[in-house]
């Protein structure tokens, strides 16, 4: 059986647009995720990278997010409806975070002295 031939063979094959990847792909993704985490920690400990640390960490974190959602959660291979349902929630969450950060950076909270 080839690495990419495993679909939902348990009677639910009708709901997948494409076959799911196999163990080799999963292990490869796991190695990549571990390597990215190592790079993140390495970047955190290096003073020379402080200027680009935040965008670098955010990019690496987003890459890990996409890899897990795309391959381990099979969103890359499943029906687009699942991407839409999840993506809507994700979009709202990202909008809330962005809006709050913008608002409170524009109008900083007063420091309350007890």
């Amino acid at each position: 059986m080839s690495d990419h031939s495993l679909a939902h063979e348990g009677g639910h094959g009708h709901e997948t647009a494409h076959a799911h990847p196999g163990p080799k792909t999963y292990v490869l993704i796991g190695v990549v995720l571990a390597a990215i985490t190592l790079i993140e920690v390495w970047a955190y400990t290096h003073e020379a990278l402080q200027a680009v640390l935040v965008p670098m960490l955010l990019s690496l974190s987003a890459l890990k997010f996409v890899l897990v959602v795309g391959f381990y959660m099979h969103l890359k291979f499943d029906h687009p409806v699942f991407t839409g349902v999840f993506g809507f929630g994700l979009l709202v969450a990202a909008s809330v975070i962005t809006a709050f950060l913008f608002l409170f950076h524009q109008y900083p909270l007063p420091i309350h002295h007890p």
Partner: protein
Amino acid sequence: MTQALPVLVEAAPPPTSPPSEPLVLEHAHPSIGGLDNRKVLMWAFLGSDCMFFGTLIATYMVYKNRSIDGPLPREIFDIPYTSVSAFVLLLSSLTMVLALSSLQRGEERRMRVWLIATALLGTVFLGGQFYEFTTFYHEGLTLSRNLFGSTFFTLTGFHGTHVAIGVFWLLALAAHSFRGRLHREHSLLLEIAGLYWHFVDIVWILIFTLVYLIPD
């Protein structure tokens, strides 16, 4: 319309004796357009959980650097220790997806090994979080100590609760399998549990970066 109804009644087949074999309705789950409703529902839940964690992360970030007194993040965070926890949770995602792959191949014994490994790794992560919380408490950081303590414990505490629920779910599935009730044709049950587990992992990916690694 009033004349059509009697025709329909007449056209209905006469009542017959009960079929010799009962209908297997317990496996006939409703679906929309070929998509199993349980899987759609899980994705909808995960989407709503994104909003939940989004608000908690937003609150943490808004109140970042606004604590009047310590302990502050840079004083108590142990990045190498938390990195190991992050590795453990990433590894548990790999074992989870390998468990699903094994069940889809019909390798139930191997699936149980990966499933129990996933639950164990989740338990290790929880143990690490308990140790971290205890250490922070002894260093003076409590839920009501300062803004950092309130937002940090709320965010990571809710994430830990999600992990704990996931561990119970995985153990329940493992017990189901040991009783011979989780076979290849039930792989969707494991896939749905896996979706939840991977979601817990991606939330930690964000928390690890936004809370621990990005400097004050």
